[in-house]
């Protein structure tokens, strides 16, 4: 009951402006078709879930969107503009940022510095001015530090700001990745299994953080997650992939009752 209510509230804030659209996106590695004609539409303000069994092509989808791979065929449109084959840094500049399934932090840097790397994307000063340490650069660096500290507070890492990121715990590292991605001021944020390896309590906190990302920072969220309870409780719309193909799409309850999904995924999970 509570679930339904929350969805309705979220639904109110939904403006039906398309932000990301996959049009039959396909990628082949040699003979293997990792993602086959996947299409879905993300509206601004969506909390969108991407699920599927292991090896379904979810992370590959993320890699397509963020420019790590170039689609073999099909198009990926961001705010109405085709972004196929753009370099990852270009895509980040356009306003899509991501976290990684296998955590990729800048290990030797502190948590705050990690976030500042993200924040630096929106830097207004040019790099050569930092060799002379001109006042605008110093001012900007101070601003970024403040922004980083604020974001770390949002994800609950205020105490560990100066800790080397490699020394953080697994759950903290996942949250730090989210803060780092948020620092680039993206319009669309992609979270790759943000809850993996977290205990139920941490997951609950994370759900709140993700909602806050959408509501307070007005970012659109696309997330991959294995934990059904987490996804069903959080996302308003879900796409299910299996063997690189899209098998279902819709709100959580329709996914839950979709026979194809049960066969491919939940059926398999139910036997556990």
């Amino acid at each position, binding site marked *: 009951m509570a679930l339904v209510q929350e969805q309705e509230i979220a639904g109110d804030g939904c403006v039906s402006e398309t932000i990301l659209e996959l049009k039959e996106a396909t990628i082949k590695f040699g003979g293997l078709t990792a993602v086959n004609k996947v299409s879905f539409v993300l509206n601004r303000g969506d909390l969108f879930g991407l699920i599927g069994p292991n090896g379904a092509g979810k992370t590959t989808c993320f*890699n397509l969107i963020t420019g790590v791979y170039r689609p073999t065929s099909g198009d990926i449109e961001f705010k109405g503009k085709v972004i196929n084959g753009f370099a990852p840094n270009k895509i980040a500049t356009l306003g899509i940022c991501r976290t990684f399934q296998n955590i990729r932090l800048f290990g030797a840097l502190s948590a705050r510095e990690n976030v500042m790397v993200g924040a630096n994307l929106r830097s207004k000063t040019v790099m050569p001015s930092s060799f002379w340490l001109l006042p605008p650069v110093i001012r900007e660096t101070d601003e970024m530090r403040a922004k980083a500290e604020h974001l770390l507070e949002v994800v609950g890492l205020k105490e560990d700001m100066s800790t080397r990121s490699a020394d953080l715990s697994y759950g903290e590292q996942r949250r730090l990745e989210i803060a780092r991605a948020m620092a680039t001021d993206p319009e669309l944020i992609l979270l790759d299994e943000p809850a993996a390896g977290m205990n139920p309590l941490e997951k609950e906190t994370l759900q709140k953080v993700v909602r806050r990302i959408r509501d307070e920072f007005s970012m659109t969220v696309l997330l991959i997650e294995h934990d059904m309870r987490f996804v069903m409780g959080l996302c308003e719309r879900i796409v299910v992939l299996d063997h690189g193909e899209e098998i279902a799409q819709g709100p959580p309850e329709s996914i839950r009752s979709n026979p194809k999904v049960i066969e491919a995924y939940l059926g398999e999970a139910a036997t556990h």
Partner: protein
Amino acid sequence: MIGEWTPLIAGLEFSILPQQLANGILLGSIYALIALGYTMVYGVLRLINFAHGEVFMLGAYTALLVSWKLGFTQENVAQHPDINGSILTLVLLLFCSMAVCGIVGVVIELLAYRPMRNQPRIAALITAIGVSLFLQYSGQLFLPNSPPPSINQKVNPIQGATNIPLRKASAETLNNVSTTTAAYEAAKAAFDAQLPNEESRFQLSPTGQALKETMDEANRARTDAEATANSERVEIILPNGQIVMFFSAIALMVGLHFLVNHTKIGRGMRAASHDFDTASLMGINVNRIVTFTFFIGSALAGAGAMMNATFLGTPLTTFYGVVPGVKAFVAAVLGGIGNIRGALLGGLLMGLAEALVAWAGYANMRDAIAFLILIFVLLFKPGGLLGSAAVEKV
């Protein structure tokens, strides 16, 4: 456009091209032997063994020192001109070089590389550079290097050369040669007959002077005819020792191929090169595999070094291994590092490339060509000719 290039092409002696190519292939077989060591170690450990060139250097020095012990020092050979090497001597030198190099390789791995196995690859690379520098410079303290000694050619019983004619001079030219030679000989005989009548060779009477001029004229004609014949005749002259070197190198490589593909330890090597950690989980003693890999790779370098030093007679310094080492590394990368057949292919191509550069008249650039090839391969086909480039998983 073509006009600008004509002098360049005109400067090329096409008649010596086959000879150069043959030299290139012979040299390439040695590069291939060294390249195998790089490739095998890289295949198993993903480590560029920078010190491999120095192992090669130590192999050459081993051959030198053993040959000295057998009495082939410069002084001893001068005193006893009848001293001569036999096939047995060569086998002994080869065996010693291979054994010493193999052991040195294993020791280097044990002391320097094994502790670095779980460190980042760059740390292992720096260690390898350190080992390489250490061997070069500490070798200077212990090994004879000034003046650079070389192995006495008396060690080598396989003397002589094989001549492979590819194209004979035309009948007309040959005819010309024999006519001019006959003419010259007649003129010479006439001059010689006149000589007793003269005061001396340098103060000739007018008759003698005329005869001498005829003879010189005939001589010039003969030389010209012979030069034409030489440029028309295309042949390859190969020292027999180098032919033996080539076939020994090929035999060693065939042996290695058998070892890797048809023995138990070879299967272990292939497994370790495919996935080191999984191989160790599957009960393969990876440490033994690594030791064995280093032993075989270094022993092959030792064989190459012994043959290079013995049959080519190059003077040795402790930097002897740097250039062949780099070229062999390039050969390994060119063929696809980690790939044994690639090392053979790369080695031969390297030798050929070098020969072509020398043939084109840029002999002083032959060391630069290796790096140029390397840069181009890495930029355009990083996996090499027979290898495949690894893709990082995101």
